């Protein structure tokens, strides 16, 4: 029983990392109709930005801001100078997927000679190991969970209680109507890419902290899980992405305890397939882009 409780605790850390990333990813899709396959690589660029700041002697929790900034800027530039021009030309969804795939390959291969082919790691003080009722977590891991909770609450607050959030929801629901109503949709989209890029950046840093070692190739492996969480929850639904992250994070760790570690990702994706069969639109029905749950 101890192992399962411990696995539950470990799952919460996985949930935190996936949730931060998946919410950003699904918001990009929900508002701009862009499946951004370069998301994983932007995470890695951000992770490395924080890495260099960290190695210069800055505490990783401070360096995380550098990662967030890098993610925000890169995402903004990607949309402004690559994705948006193609979308304006009327490129269809599949075409845009190809464009983002090309972007991911370019970013990855541009990074390799700069950061090297080998893994890197942050200088992180994990703090003492805390044990309570079977849960086994370090203070750093608890802090990662706290960061995720704060960011999810911030996103909730943004979408629910701010004018910007309302503008985002309106743009997601019907960009033409939103524009006609006087909402500066282009500016909203720019802000979306900045915010989701920052989320992506933070996700890159916490992912690197979570796994101890990371490399350029790590981005692609994270992306699959992120997409799974986003789709599970309902594409374009930030609250759905949170739920999707919760399910995938917990299920993978519990299955490693119950079955065998080599099957944990199989189980997680089997869950995804099952949900898609039973509820193809994802767990949260898409009543409108970025609609609040419940």
């Amino acid at each position: 029983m101890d192992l399962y409780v411990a696995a539950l605790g470990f799952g919460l850390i996985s949930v935190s990392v996936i949730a931060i990333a998946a919410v950003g990813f699904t918001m990009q899709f929900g508002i701009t109709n862009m499946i951004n396959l370069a998301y994983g690589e932007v995470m890695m660029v951000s992770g490395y930005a924080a890495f260099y700041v960290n190695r210069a002697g800055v505490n990783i929790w401070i360096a995380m801001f550098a990662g967030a900034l890098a993610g925000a800027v890169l995402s903004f530039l990607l949309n402004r100078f690559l994705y948006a021009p193609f979308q304006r030309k009327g490129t269809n969804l599949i075409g845009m997927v190809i464009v983002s795939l090309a972007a991911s390959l370019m970013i990855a291969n541009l990074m390799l000679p700069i950061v090297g082919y080998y893994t890197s790691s942050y200088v992180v003080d994990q703090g003492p190991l805390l044990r309570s009722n079977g849960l086994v977590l370090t203070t750093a891991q608890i802090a990662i969970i706290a960061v995720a909770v704060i960011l999810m609450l911030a996103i909730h607050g943004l979408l629910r209680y701010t004018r910007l959030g309302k503008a985002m929801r309106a743009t997601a629901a019907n960009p033409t109507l939103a524009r006609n109503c006087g909402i500066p949709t282009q500016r909203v989209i720019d802000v979306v890419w900045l915010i989701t890029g920052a989320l992506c950046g933070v996700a890159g840093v916490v992912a690197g902290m979570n796994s101890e070692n990371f490399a350029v190739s790590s981005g692609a492996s994270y992306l699959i899980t992120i997409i799974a969480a986003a789709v599970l929850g309902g594409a374009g639904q930030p609250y759905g992405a949170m739920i999707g992250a919760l399910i995938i994070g917990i299920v993978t760790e519990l299955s490693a305890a119950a079955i065998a570690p080599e099957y944990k990702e199989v189980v997680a994706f089997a869950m995804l397939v099952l949900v898609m069969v039973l509820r193809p639109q994802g767990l949260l029905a898409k009543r409108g882009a970025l609609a609040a749950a419940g």
Partner: protein
Amino acid sequence: MTTFRSSLRVPAFAVSTLAVLLLAACGGSTSTGGGLGSGPLLEGVLAPFSGADASFGPRYLAGCYAAALSINGAGGIGGRQLSCQQFDTRGEPADAVPAANAMISSNSNLMGVVGCTSDEASTVVPILDRSHIPMVCMTGQSEFNKTSFKYFHRLVPPDSFDAYAMIGSALFGPNHAPYKRIALVFGDDIGSQNFVGPAVAALNKLGVTIAINQAIHLGAASYRTEVAAMLQTHPDVILTETIGSAGTYMKEVQQQNGGNVIPFIGTSATIDPVWFQQVVDAIGLPAFLANYTAVDLRLSLQGAGYDEFLTELTAADSKFSGSNALTYKGKSPTVHLYDGIILTALAMVAANSSDPTVYNPKIFEIANGVSGATVVNTFKDGVAALKAGKSIRYVGAAGENNFNQWNNSQQGYNLVTMDKDGNEQVVGQLTEAQTQKIIDAGGNA
């Protein structure tokens, strides 16, 4: 009087003579001693230079650079200068096949290929063999223990023998009593799982408890649950490889085990600066030095052959900036593949042919030697002996090679650790009797 018929005979005779001469010239490359040809030669380094096994490619390339400098410094192969080129397989069969095909189609001057690790050998070896390209491969897969691929050569033992050596280290290693409960933690990929079957067979036969046999997915973000499950079985020692993920896994061990690391024994692939740095970054240097040992192929690392290798590797380190060639001076893949390229080059010279169908069989002959063969330690000495009409046996940087009928060669094991700078240090050797006991227990798989 010249008749019409006789007037035709002379040009007909000339034409037919010319035809015979032309045919002889065209067929020259398929007969022994067709000549070494002209123009530069290329040695392909077909290996991962990116991805999880990105550390493999550079050490192989370093060996190639050193061999090329040694060969070119001695005048080349019949005057032909050798160069090295890397072809990145990314450690994935799906990427390795196009890389191999592109290498072959774009380079008609391939002398040979080195690399072909366990990640991709199953897919690229048939391609290289069909194209008649002599290869010296680093794969340890058991499927090549009795291979029918004529152009395949392996100067290192199969991976399964690393597993036996690791067990030997656990049972007979210096500075500790025989371990009684052993955890096996390996990646769930082809190359890593090669160790597990032989290890399990040997341990069961020897009556040693396998605390847990854990296959983990390399590159995963975390292994917390896996480590928790492993710790519950209370192993004395962990046998592992986990390239690319060792730091993540061992950090969790340290965190969940009250700050203590369980002793861990690595395969020869873990004796690598990248692996060292990864794990040291994760668990700290004191914990690493106190708990890590590994097994490595027994290399002589001395003698005229090694001296030549070291000289050329030093030159390569400065000539090819960024190669860090000198880092690999004690690494068996670098040393063995250097020898493999020298063997291939000497085979060409011995056969006096640039046709691989002609010189490929000479590789075996020069590695094992024939009766009365002159032992040579460098390419230069080999060429000189061949020019003097002698048959040769090349004993190079890694020492003697002894190919069996399947072109497999191996030389035993060292038990090693690393110092604070990541340099390999030999702390013991498995005796022949100890090694044989474990191999017999494992069924020689």
